């Protein structure tokens, strides 16, 4: 059965997984440039990218978790908490570098805590610890600020969210740098590949000597780290630490990963796909704005796109099972 079952349909579905999201993005951009003369301008495109940057960072972290067949619901709240922590540090007189380090370290350690709770307490699913962390982190952000934003941050800090490098918005540069780093980590290192192995079959990975608990903790720590990085960009752009920043952002990041071709079943997903997934969401929002579609309808459209993307994954999965 080897040729027929795997050959053609396998190649097609493999190509779809790899290039489907990119193709969708290109088609969307083509359609929008026909529908609106404002879309295909360098300024607007950079704008879209900049607006997608926080989601793209969170999605990179989310990707490392989703390839292990996990999920991280806490990144939106961690994002909010980290903006607050950075802003408070700056207000207390810390230099920008220290504030950035604090945001990254807090995100990474609380993310690692997610992983520790999940693996060491043997909780049934990462949904549980990260749902808990989502509430704890949001609550802490509100407690620390009394619910008020902390505004007016120094320019050396705002540079990362609002500045530019040779005309390219700084957030875009940051996203691209992290994309390269995550791509190298996931495809060129043993720990990176171990994450795919865990997502593909955790028991088999364990029996092959993969230190499963350690790797999972690393994945959740990276996810938290990216929430910290996103916080630096967001606080810089908004010129404030804002306790309600990133409400619902975890869901956008999950959507970007899934639209980008990663599988909820674990073991499959790429950095390029995830970046494209985040850009698809950004282009959708931007395009619908340009076309004067109300924000309410935008939400409806994005919801439909998420379901459609996961449905495509389910169909692919079923086709793959049938061929084995």
């Amino acid at each position, binding site marked *: 059965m080897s040729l027929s*079952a795997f050959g053609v349909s*396998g190649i097609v579905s493999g190509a779809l997984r790899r290039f489907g999201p990119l193709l969708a993005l290109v088609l969307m951009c083509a359609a929008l440039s026909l529908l609106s003369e404002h879309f295909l301008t360098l300024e607007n495109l950079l704008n879209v990218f900049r607006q997608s940057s926080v989601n793209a960072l969170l999605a990179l972290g989310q990707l490392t978790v989703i390839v292990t067949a996990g999920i991280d619901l806490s990144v939106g709240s961690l994002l909010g908490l980290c903006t607050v922590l950075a802003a408070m540090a700056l207000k207390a007189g810390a230099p920008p570098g220290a504030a950035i380090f604090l945001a990254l370290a807090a995100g990474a350690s609380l993310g690692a805590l997610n992983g520790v709770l999940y693996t060491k307490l043997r909780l049934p699913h990462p949904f549980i610890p990260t749902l808990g962390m989502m509430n704890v982190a949001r609550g802490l952000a509100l407690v620390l600020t009394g619910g008020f934003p902390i505004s007016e941050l120094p320019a050396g800090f705002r540079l990362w969210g609002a500045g530019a490098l040779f005309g390219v918005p700084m957030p875009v540069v940051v996203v691209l740098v992290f994309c390269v780093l995550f791509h190298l980590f996931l495809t060129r290192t043993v720990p990176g590949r171990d994450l795919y192995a865990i997502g593909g079959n955790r028991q088999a990975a364990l029996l092959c*000597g993969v230190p499963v608990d350690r790797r999972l903790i690393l994945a959740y720590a990276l996810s938290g780290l990216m929430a910290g990085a996103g916080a630096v960009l967001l606080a810089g752009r908004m010129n404030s630490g804002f306790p309600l920043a990133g409400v619902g952002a975890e869901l956008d990041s999950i959507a970007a990963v899934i639209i980008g071709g990663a599988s909820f079943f674990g*073991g499959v997903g790429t950095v390029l796909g995830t970046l494209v997934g985040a850009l698809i969401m950004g282009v959708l929002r931007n395009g619908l704005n340009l076309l004067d579609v109300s924000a309410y309808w935008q939400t409806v459209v994005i919801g439909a796109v998420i379901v459609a993307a996961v449905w495509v994954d389910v169909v692919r999965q079923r086709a793959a099972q049938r061929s084995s």
Partner: protein
Amino acid sequence: MTVPLLEMQQIRKSFGGSVALDGVSFEVLPGEVHALVGENGAGKSTLMNIASGVLQPDAGRILWQGRALPALDPRKARQLGIAFVHQELALVPQLSIAENIFLGRHAQGPPALVRWGRMRDHARQLLAELGRPLDPDSPVASLGVGEQQLVEIARALAFQARLVIMDEPTAALSESEVARLFQVIARLERRGVSVVYITHRLREIYQIARRVTVLRDGRRVASAPIAAMPHDELIRHIVGRPAQEQFPPPGPPPRGPCALRVERLTARGRFQDVSFHVRAGEIVGLAGLVGAGRTELLEAIFGAAPFDAGQIWLQERPVRIRSPRDAIRLGMALVPDDRKMKGLIPRAPVVWNLVLPSCRRFLLRPAEERSRALALIGDLRIRPADAHIPVSSLSGGNQQKVVLARWLLARASVFLMDEPTRGIDVGAKAEIYELIRRLAERGAAIVLVSSEWEEILGLADRVLVMHRGRMVGELPREQATEEAIMRLATGGVP
């Protein structure tokens, strides 16, 4: 001549470009047990999926009691009385036996009402007819695999099945459960129910079947009364070449140093006080019934499950193994009993599945991995010889070779093999036997768990027997017979 209950004529079926069935005819007489054998991929499952309406043939006719059937779908097949007891049981573990037996069937009386009393009585009666008076109220989750299978068969009877198709029903059963299943099959036969029995265990056929049909590469190559089909000839039909020596000849008795020693290992509720040793170059068979604690013992030695007391020595040094990672570092290898659940990462390419345990460095080296994988693929004749296709697209035998091959790459010296040939075809089995022997000759110490005792008798230098979590006996090769193993495994004295 009797009219066949089911007659399939010139059935053809292809998937995409590859032909799965190439004009196969097959008939089942009323009340006969008909064995259907062949290597994996020979077309057995496809043929039976057509008989039960799951797949539609591309060409050919199906007759039921002499009358041609129009297109068959699963519902129609069930109405006719065709029931398929699958390899993977299709029961709902949380529901009771009775509920499972009547799952999806409309009770007589007002719709949407469950008639508990009648359902229970009927279930009890069916189970009694099968010779196993289980309590219809107990949840299926509390049953062993053999009993669950019985519930599936009872379900088939509740649907007034005239033809029961069993796909490798004994693959997961212990010897005693197999014996009980055979009694049930005999009872079905007496009731006039026909059984199609798919198996890789050829010896079973001679115990229960009346006739046997052999498929090879999508064609029927033989169909005869079992009395007219000696074992050698059967194997020749299956593999398409003369039956060779299935087991490679044994070498001289191993005299190597002690590679693995286990002393008084205990894991409460799983095994107690287990002691044994394996020398370098030695194959030690570990026999026992399912549930005797063999899998649990191997997994504990390998660090995949905790134990409460005892000590493990490797190369005469005491070791502490807290995880499979520790075990692998010390040169151990585990070939798990369940390839799909514990062995492979199905969507990952073959090469990943091969190199996973031997990755030690931080950075991957794709070129090196690829060349090593290809060397192994060539050495073990893994087909298709492509390192980058998903391992799930390989046949069962080739998948199993991948699971074994990864430990060659990891340079393991102590192999714990749990049912290394489960569910794979005759040809692949012979290759794996040869590989096991070759490993031993190169100085590996091997613990071989198998429920097919001829496998243990054919390969092992020494046989250990477990019964209910305890090591109950040791038989040198000369004294190891099926009878002796059976006596020990069932708790008797040697």
